């Protein structure tokens, strides 16, 4: 099953060449007047292929290439109170497989499942960051808005913890301008918005074929999220843990990338100088 997921990721990153982007510039003339079909900016697909050609990518089949399992243990998750869920009344039907037990009506999430899902999610993050993908952190919790934005700034990625305007992903060419590149991975540090409804970005990302990672609490819907991570999204300690883990995995991947590029440059000086 992990192979399918990895293939999906590969196809998303354009490695297998399935990515469809805006058409390249085509000039034609009708009755002597010249027109162009689409924007004259070079499509990002060409950029990404030249990016990946330079350095060989780590094999996707190899499990945990960046050794991200060292970053956290089960005890760390327990100490950060990741296992604490909401009350039985708030419980979402689809979260029942991820629950371990409930004591005094308070749901407790199964940390074994959380650990496995979190390792997968961190692996995906690292692989995307390694290939120079754009990662967008999303959270609508006002308490942690500053923390999430600082995390994104420190690892050189992007954040959106503010009011989500309707067409940011689906109407991107109008919102941002022609030739914009959409995020390659969206990480939800909290899947609900301020009125306890599912964040619009989950649906929009699914529409635009963008893989998502989401920290789902016991009152959230994990169905549309590609890599759900069952865990607590209300406690500051837990949020700091997640931010730290994602930041470290992205930084590790980027450092490894820079190392490989340097090695490539040293081993083949003729090709790198051209």
């Amino acid at each position: 099953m992990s192979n399918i997921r990895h293939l999906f990721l590969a196809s998303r990153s354009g490695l297998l060449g399935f990515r469809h982007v805006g058409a390249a510039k085509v000039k034609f003339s009708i009755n002597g007047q010249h027109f162009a079909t689409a924007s004259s900016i070079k499509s990002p697909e060409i950029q990404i292929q030249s990016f990946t050609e330079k350095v060989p990518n780590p094999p996707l089949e190899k499990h945990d290439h960046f050794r991200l399992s060292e970053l956290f243990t089960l005890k760390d998750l327990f100490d950060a109170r990741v296992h604490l869920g909401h009350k039985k009344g708030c419980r979402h039907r689809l979260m029942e497989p991820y629950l371990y037990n409930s004591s005094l009506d308070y749901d407790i999430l199964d940390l074994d499942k959380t650990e496995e899902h979190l390792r997968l999610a961190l692996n995906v993050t690292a692989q995307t960051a390694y290939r120079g993908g754009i990662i967008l952190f999303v959270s609508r919790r006002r308490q942690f808005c500053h923390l999430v934005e600082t995390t994104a700034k420190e690892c050189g990625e992007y954040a959106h913890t503010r009011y989500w305007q309707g067409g940011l992903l689906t109407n991107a060419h109008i919102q941002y301008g022609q030739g914009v590149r959409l995020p390659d991975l969206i990480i939800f540090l909290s899947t609900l918005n301020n009125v306890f409804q599912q964040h619009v970005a989950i649906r929009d990302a699914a529409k635009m074929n963008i893989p998502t990672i989401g920290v789902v609490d016991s009152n959230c819907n994990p169905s549309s999220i590609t890599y759900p991570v069952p865990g607590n999204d209300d406690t500051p300690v837990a949020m700091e843990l997640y931010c730290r883990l994602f930041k470290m995995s992205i930084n590790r991947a980027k450092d490894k990338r820079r190392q490989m590029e340097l090695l490539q440059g040293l081993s083949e000086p003729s090709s790198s100088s051209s």
Partner: protein
Amino acid sequence: MAANCGRVVRLLLGKSVKFASPCNPLTPQLCRQISCSSALCRKNLASLGPEKFTAEFIQKQIEEFEIGKRHLANMMGEDPENFTQEDIDRSIAYLFPSGLFEKKARPFMKHPDEVFPKQRAVQWGPDGRPFHFLFYTGKQSYYSLMHELYAKVLNIEKHQDRLRAKGLFSAEPKQISLGTSRWLTKEELEATLVETISSHDYDRFIQLMERMLSMPYSSLEEEFILRYRQQLEAQSMHQIVPPLQKDEKGVDFSTAEGKRKTSRSSVVVRDCGSGRITINGEDYLHYFPVLQDREQLMFPLQFAGVLGRFDLEATVSGGGRSSQAGALRLAISKALLSFLSETEGEAMRQAGLLTPDPRVRERKKPGQEGARRKFTWKKR
């Protein structure tokens, strides 16, 4: 032409629509004829938005402006190094005289930063990655300002906590001196951020700034707060008294100006004791044959009770006889202030001698005979 159109429309619509291509008639594909008139292919230029100027274009314009400025200075025979914008305006007005009423339609030569509207350059690099970490929010400048502001609030709170822990927290620390200043208006903030914000966003910004101001140790971020405050110019209602000067013979005199409708006058009041009045070199009896105008001239002197004391030397231009008389009256009253005491000056102000008359000629409106007079109303 048709084949060309067909190929274009295929590229436009992608692989979803299949055409009955004339080269292979044997392929049993679903074919759908799409109309491909030139009207469809023509791009709606208006929908692209305002024209975008690249940074290189603006740079080139600036270089051309600088070179042109030097040429202009040489043409006018002035120093190219110290050629200011006022000199440029003067030279252009001289070289290209224009009778157009609309000032903005006349020829001008201004720095490109004033001509081309400030725009945002392309926000991402060659690999497609945006430069700003909040690019995907849509309002990156505003949200990064809010982020920075909140970081400063947290910083101040941390500082306060540290002081409390050490026991050095004082109840009345140094406060920021705001003076007579106000917060930047929404339009001014938009101009600083080069980005439109909604009124709700602006209210949030002001709320957070007020919260930061209310904290006792807000003086830590004084420089940041003052950046978003605008000083109010103090408008004093107090009348400015012209200074009393002494000429070579030791006679006190003062100068003042006055205006009414389109007349402008300047008066020099000398403490000679003769009571002579000269207007534009002529005696006042010759200049103002009408009694009413001379009464207007004398009124301020008669009110202050100094009829024979002062010597007036006046110049006046523009307008008609009545408005010239009014302008002179105002100028005389203002000049007299420097010779009189405060109470007498106050009495003159209350008499209305120091107030410039704001009435000007009202324009004629179309569909009416004059400013107010309508055409004769006919029942049928």
